[in-house]
């Protein structure tokens, strides 16, 4: 060995704020303990549930409010989706030992790629209400920077002085995973030495819930919130809307080694495809999903037999889960062990792929796969081994994390053992 291959991309830091915890460690611990982040939201903070008489009264809100973490004045200039991005990025940056901005990585060599599904929707609604009820002068001058979908990426770029570039992929529920893929491209192309990458979302509000209800995609198991998100279970009835952010610090292995950084995982490859089939529904043949997994393997120089584990997109919708399982079987065979983290986290939309990539990486690092909660009766259409009941100890050499989004976006990311 003369050293790592130059294009090898490693993870040197990570951070998250999720329905299970205010940081990555507490989230991971809660997942292994089998806790659910889903709860009843028929409360004052979510008064629209009652006011609009919505049929869904459950969600997976953040465990720790960003307002409890960020300074007040900084927080009030940001939409909640920007706040969570900054909170997770702060943890990841410190975790990677990058010190004061500009001290370890040159600002001109630092990029940010943070995706979101819809950005500052709550700001848009709140400010429109102000315009209607109180007039122009009451509309915040910060309205546009708070609602723009590149806001989370831009704020993080500002925070850490990223001057190579700042990007914001928008591909619905695949945005967070797509951001990681873009980061790999930037690093391989030599356009940056370090990339802060991931996803952020905070859109638990009346119109998003109502829209998902009308699309018939949300679980209405209101009386049993913790049992509502049940991917792959025969009695699943839809997903549970969550919120949060997940951020990774990515760099080329030789750059990480040169600065003596601790390496937590290896992002070995990615595959991105699009269905061009239907604006929301998955292709029943799963062609796009299968090709994404195959591309993610090829990009990593691996074959199907090398993959031990798949961290599934599986949202707990009737059509989606079975289609994904069939696609995985076609792409990888039936030896892979599956789990569905949305059973505990809910669906964090644009943050999902990033947080679940962190979970995938930690599963490899710790040799343990968290259980899919509420999987009591496996859907007969799922002819694969899904971890249920208790977490399972598995020595994982390589794993794939799947993320798919409305619009026909498919992203698969491959992680390998360090």
């Amino acid at each position, binding site marked *: 060995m003369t050293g790592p291959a130059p294009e090898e991309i490693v993870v040197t830091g990570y951070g998250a704020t999720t329905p299970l915890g205010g940081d990555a460690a507490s989230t991971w611990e809660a997942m292994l303990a089998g806790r659910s982040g889903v709860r009843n939201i028929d409360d004052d903070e979510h008064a629209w549930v009652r006011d609009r008489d919505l049929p869904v009264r459950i969600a997976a809100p953040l465990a720790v409010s960003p307002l409890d973490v960020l*300074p*007040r*004045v900084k927080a009030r200039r940001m939409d909640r989706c920007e706040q969570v991005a900054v909170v997770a990025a702060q943890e990841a940056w410190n975790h990677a030992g990058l010190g004061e901005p500009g001290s370890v990585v040159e600002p001109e060599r630092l990029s940010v790629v943070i995706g979101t599904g819809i950005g500052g929707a709550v700001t848009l609604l709140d400010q429109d209400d102000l315009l209607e009820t109180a007039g122009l*002068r*009451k509309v*915040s*001058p*910060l309205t546009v920077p708070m609602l723009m979908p590149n806001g989370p990426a831009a704020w993080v770029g500002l925070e850490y002085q990223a001057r190579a570039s700042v990007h914001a992929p928008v591909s619905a529920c695949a945005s967070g995973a797509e951001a990681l893929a873009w980061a790999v491209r930037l690093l391989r192309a030599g356009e940056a030495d370090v990339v802060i990458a991931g996803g952020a979302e905070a859109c638990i509000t009346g119109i998003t819930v109502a829209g998902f209800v009308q699309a018939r995609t949300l679980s209405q198991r209101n009386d049993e919130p913790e049992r509502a998100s049940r991917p792959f279970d025969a009695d699943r009835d839809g997903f549970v809307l969550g919120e949060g952010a997940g951020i990774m610090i990515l760099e080329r292995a030789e750059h990480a080694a040169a600065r003596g950084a601790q390496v937590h995982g290896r992002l070995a490859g990615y595959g991105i495809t699009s269905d061009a089939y239907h604006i929301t529904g998955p292709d029943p043949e799963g062609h796009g999903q299968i090709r994404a997994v195959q591309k993610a393997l090829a990009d990593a120089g691996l074959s199907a037999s090398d993959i031990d584990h798949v961290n599934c997109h599986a949202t707990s919708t009737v059509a989606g889960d079975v289609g994904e399982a069939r696609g995985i079987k076609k792409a990888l065979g039936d030896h892979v062990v599956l789990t569905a983290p949305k059973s505990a986290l809910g669906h964090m939309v644009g943050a999902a792929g990033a947080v679940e990539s962190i979970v995938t990486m930690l599963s490899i690092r710790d040799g343990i796969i968290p259980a899919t909660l509420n999987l009591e009766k496996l859907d007969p259409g799922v002819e694969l081994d899904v971890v249920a009941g208790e977490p399972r100890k598995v020595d994982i050499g390589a794993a794939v994390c799947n993320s798919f989004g409305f619009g026909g976006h498919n992203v698969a990311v491959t992680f390998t053992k360090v």
Partner: protein
Amino acid sequence: MADNAEILAGLAEIVKDVVDIDTAEVTADKSFVDDLDIDSLSMVEIAVQAEDKFGVKIPDDQLAELKTVGDAVDYIAKHQ
């Protein structure tokens, strides 16, 4: 009708709320931009809150002329 000292104190409270600068820092001789480092977006927020608090109108062309905290205190005193 607030006197100049009361206007200054009220303005300092608004500045603290919007940009978290200690009220003791907000004195008549300070420039909003050069000394207090307040950007144009925050100035709009401060102006809107000042309008509500003191019952004045601060049109944009006037706002641009209010370079120092003292300028703003004088303007409010004259127009309330």
